[in-house]
């Protein structure tokens, strides 16, 4: 079985089947580039992902593994159906996968899914962040995202006043 070695920013190595790795648009491109430039067709590609640390890379690979038989969604889904497929594609496994995660980790996962071009994962993580904001009060959002109000003086009130004059285009 053809394998690829994927190395995280903090030096963790993941040995992954190429078939699985190619479900990431980025890894697929890297593997194909390696193939074209390598004389030895048996050589094992090694890909360093300098922007994703091990904890996050492991989560991405776990998600890919779980969804290995799903149809691959185009990276530029905007041209097709927007992001509306996220809810449709979210399984119980996805919900259980995301449920225990701190929203900071989810944000890192969003960036990782975007960088690695894993559309399905990007969709469900973005949807999760949206759901923690839509229809929530300021205090609820602060709690969910572990934010503290650090406005000084009347800055918060000033921001609300600025918002009052904003009209959506």
């Amino acid at each position, binding site marked *: 079985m053809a394998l690829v070695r994927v190395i995280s920013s903090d030096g963790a190595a*993941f040995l992954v089947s190429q078939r699985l790795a190619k479900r990431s648009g980025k890894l697929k491109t890297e593997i194909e580039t390696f193939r074209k430039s390598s004389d030895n067709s048996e050589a094992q590609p090694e890909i360093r992902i*300098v922007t994703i640390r091990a904890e996050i890379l492991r989560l991405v690979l776990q998600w890919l593994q779980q969804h290995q038989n799903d149809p691959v969604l185009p990276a530029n889904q905007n041209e097709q159906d927007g*992001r509306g497929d996220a809810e449709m594609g979210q399984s119980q496994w996805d919900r259980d996968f995301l449920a225990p995660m701190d929203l*900071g980790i989810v944000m890192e996962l*969003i960036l990782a899914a975007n960088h690695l071009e894993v559309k399905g994962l990007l969709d469900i993580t973005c949807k999760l962040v949206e759901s923690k904001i839509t229809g929530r009060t300021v205090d609820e959002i602060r709690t969910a995202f572990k934010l503290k109000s650090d406005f000084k003086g009347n800055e918060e009130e000033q921001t609300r006043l*600025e918002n009052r004059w*904003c009209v959506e285009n």
Partner: protein
Amino acid sequence: MSSTSKKVATDLQAKEEGPVGPVTILATNILGSDEMEELGYHHFPAENISEVWLNIYEKLGHQDKLTFSRTCAEWHDWVASKRTIQFFFQAASLAFGNLPGKEILQCRTLCRAWTEELGLLYQFLPVVPSNFYVPISASGSKSKEFSDKPTFRTSLRSIDKMKSFMADMEGHRGNPIPWGMLDLVRDVPDEEGQLTLIEKCRLSREYWTAAGMLLSKFGKYVRCVEFAFHEGDPGLPCIEFVDYFRNCLVSCPNVMELIIEDSSGGGWDDEIEEYVRLISLPQLKSLESLEIYGVEYDFADLILDYCCVPANIKRIYLDEHRIPQAVYCFSNLEILEVQQEELLYEDLILNFERFKVLEKIPPLKILEVEFSSELEEDEVPNLLDILTVVESFGNTLTGLNVRSSLSPVAFEEISGIRINLPKLQRLELQDYQGSLDLLVGLKSLTYLIIHNVDSTQSDPVGLAPFSGFEERIYESNIWKMVPSLKIIRIGQKTYRRQIYDQMWGEREPDAIK
């Protein structure tokens, strides 16, 4: 791979828990300390002075903060509690696309970091972003602006609003126009029609004087401003308007986009032109985009001459029946929209012919044109005419929208002709019912949109003549002849290549000859 690495991989497989299938993660682990050195991972001698480094961290920009947290595991742990701030800027640009505007505004009130980052994320969007011309969505709507992000403007359309805004922002030391877009399209009150000319003038003066005062205080924060002069305004001498307009512009030195609409019907004469030349208008060094509606041609020329740095202008919208001379100097123009029902097609041709002889043809990416539909039957241009005219932009043109009806072109007229628009991805036509054989040469064409077609008529797509085309569009050989084509939209209906592929796979539809 080195022998050490091979050994590590083998060890890792042994440590992995759970089933190991043919497409599963085979092994994961952190490399041992020997390999960490090899990978450039080493301890930075700072673990005992975290306060110092965290102090520095707080002063970094978002990109540097990300780098900071990736530097070593220890530093990453120090800032773990700040992840929702640390990753906010980049994650929000991906995750906030579908959030309603109200929610985005609310997010500004959560903490200082989110307020600042949202400001950066939305305020400094380039006027012509790389994704300016994104493809159609499932709903068929075209999103030309900023991908799918909502944008906001600070709307001050009446003197009462202007005064109220100034009262709210009294003592504001920062930017009270958080998204940088200011709307100065004065609402004309219903009762203004009943007012005397003197009263109208008073209201108009009051509004534009207040606008000038507001901009003198906050104009430096404005990135996009829309001015509209109205029917209620003509009582004012045109020279006075010129003064108001000039004063407003002088106070907006950072403006990137300028939108001017004039429906005042105010007179324009040589005296006013001389006056403008005497006082001159300010040059706006950041200006990239202009939209000009209904402005006297001579005044529009002066605005273009004075306010634009020609090499900086990337987009212009005109509703005039000519392209002003200054536009030919916009050597980096990327988007040109010319829409004027009175524009004669032959004038349009003459205007575009001039581009061909320029020393540097602008790298036009998007072209939208509308011309007069009041033409004799034999004067109406056809698709070949239009595509030939725009070939001079062939090296850059990715989108062409012809908003006027074209006459059908017969297959015999275009036999053997190949259009040289290798980058054209999106073609929009109006009421088109002629042959599309010309599209065969368009190697990048991805989206074909034909607006307002009466779907009861037969054969709008000439390649595979049949009636009841809506049901049989997937039998058309256009999918085969234009391999890059992904979506055809006719009227309100969208047809997709993926459905064609699913229907036919490797086979060819019977209808193809």
